[in-house]
């Protein structure tokens, strides 16, 4: 039974269960699926590509796309036309069906992740009680698609890229998931809508020492999860051509490209929704929802403001992702794996416990106020700082004692025979 038959069976089963859906639910879903997922999200992503090209150009003292339309604004449309009219090459030795399925699987994963993001009050595609677990499950489909792409191409570079990609994605999935546990703990729910509601009452979750550490870990691990620089080892063009999508051309390559940007957008939305307070403009001030009276019209205006703030925050995170790409060089593969397992995972584990301490100190006693917040910060802040310092110190000491090789020091001094003058180098 293939995927389509499975989906059709699920649909028929749902019909046979006779779930009552009223007209408004159906209309809302149709709007989300046809306008949101088929129109707005791909549009946003297309213009993220334009933004990245413009921003990267400015960082490199260039102008960027400026020929197609004003400020190059029609560039994404020109790119799409070009991709569709390119010849669709499949290498002779490739596994045809899997080669076709891989990009579809990757883009499906990126779409499914978007289903639970709460953009504003009442503006989430669907409010699943287990939203965060669903989101993690959906996002872990993409390593599968990436591996299928690399394997089915029957190209050695693709295969190496795919193996690296899977090793990297599973390694960074652990800290990414662990970093979300404080949020679940404080909100007492997996539903992203409840997590947002909780932040309306208690301020942004990032505004606490364990929340800040969790946000940083989530941000770093998310960049690695979407294969962006400096963690773009799977598609390192200087060594692997294009990694797992070397043998992809035309629209199939375009789907990988689109999925990458859609994933960047999705993880930015996730970080905004669970750590940065969603659409709330000020960290500790509850948004005055009844600002303009009780009418439906004021509700629309308030929701529009929340949505605008949400999108501004997402845009800021996307910009930081582009900034990081323009600034940092690609990591070395052993350091990449080390950074996940020896830095982020221990820190995330400690952070879970610190988050529980924060809950006991600040959230459980009841009403949230400044005194409690400062008391909690005074207790948990030093623990978080000590944990960070400790992890880095242990890694320095360990790396200096057992370097990977003489030519390949992970930290500390390079011996006189290697580096020339015994240059002291500090690194990860």
């Amino acid at each position, binding site marked *: 039974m293939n995927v389509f038959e499975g989906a059709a069976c699920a649909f028929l089963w749902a019909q046979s269960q006779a779930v009552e859906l009223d007209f408004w639910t159906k209309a809302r879903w149709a709007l989300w699926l046809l306008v949101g*997922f088929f129109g707005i999200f791909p549009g946003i992503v297309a213009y993220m590509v334009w933004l990245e090209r413009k921003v990267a150009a400015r960082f490199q003292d260039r102008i960027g796309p400026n020929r197609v339309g004003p400020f190059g604004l029609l560039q994404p449309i020109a790119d799409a036309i070009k991709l569709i009219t390119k010849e669709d090459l499949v*290498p002779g030795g490739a596994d045809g069906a899997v080669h076709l399925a891989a990009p579809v699987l990757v883009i499906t994963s990126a779409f*499914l992740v978007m289903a639970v993001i709460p953009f504003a009050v009442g503006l989430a595609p669907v409010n699943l009680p287990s939203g965060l677990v669903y989101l993690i499950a959906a996002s872990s489909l993409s390593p599968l698609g990436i591996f299928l792409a690399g394997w089915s191409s029957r190209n050695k570079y693709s*295969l190496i890229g795919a193996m690296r990609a899977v*090793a990297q994605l599973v390694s960074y999935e652990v800290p990414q998931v662990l970093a979300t546990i404080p949020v*679940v703990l404080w909100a*007492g729910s997996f539903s992203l809508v409840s997590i947002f509601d909780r932040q309306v009452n208690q301020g942004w979750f990032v505004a606490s020492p364990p929340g800040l550490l969790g946000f940083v870990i989530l941000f770093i691990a998310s960049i690695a999860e979407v294969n962006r620089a400096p963690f773009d080892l799977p598609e390192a063009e200087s060594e692997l051509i294009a990694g797992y999508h070397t043998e992809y051309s035309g629209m199939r390559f375009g789907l990988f490209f689109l999925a990458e940007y859609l994933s960047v957008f999705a993880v930015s939305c996730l970080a905004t929704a669970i750590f940065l307070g969603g659409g709330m403009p000020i960290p500790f001030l509850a948004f005055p929802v009844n600002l303009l009276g009780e009418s439906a019209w004021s509700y629309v205006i308030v929701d529009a403001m929340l949505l605008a703030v949400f999108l501004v925050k997402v845009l800021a995170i996307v910009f930081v992702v582009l900034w990081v790409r323009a600034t940092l060089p690609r990591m070395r593969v052993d350091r990449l*794996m080390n950074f996940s397992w020896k830095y982020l995972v221990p820190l995330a584990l400690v952070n*879970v416990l610190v988050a529980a301490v924060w809950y006991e100190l600040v959230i459980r006693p009841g009403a949230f106020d400044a005194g409690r917040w400062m008391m909690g910060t005074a207790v948990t802040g030093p623990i978080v700082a000590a944990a960070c310092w400790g992890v880095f110190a242990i890694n320095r000491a*360990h790396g200096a004692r057992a370097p990977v090789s003489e030519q390949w020091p992970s930290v500390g001094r390079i011996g006189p025979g290697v580096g020339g003058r015994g240059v002291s180098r500090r690194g990860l």
Partner: protein
Amino acid sequence: MIISNYIFIGLLLLVAMTFGLAPIALAHVVAPRKRSRVKEVAYECGVLTHGETWVRFRIQYYIYALLFVVFDIEVVFLFPWAASYADLGIFALVEMTIFLAILLVGLIYAWAKGVLRWV
């Protein structure tokens, strides 16, 4: 209500696959097709591919996969604990500290054994 949410997910799955397959189908109609043997050769920097491509992996990758399974299952235990922490209280925190300490010892053991070293 909960079932109907998952119907939306199912519909979204269909929409997402359509979104993936439709441009490929369109490209199939629009794009030129001039097949030749040279074009179908795998692109390995202009050199003909040598030897078998679909080979076994290095053991390194399996070890990371094993570690991943261990820690992912740990997350499966941590998530319900976190979601119901409000009702559990201090005792659950102590228990989870012990649980995490055991796991951390496992990570340190793997580290000391050189499993986490990429060679």
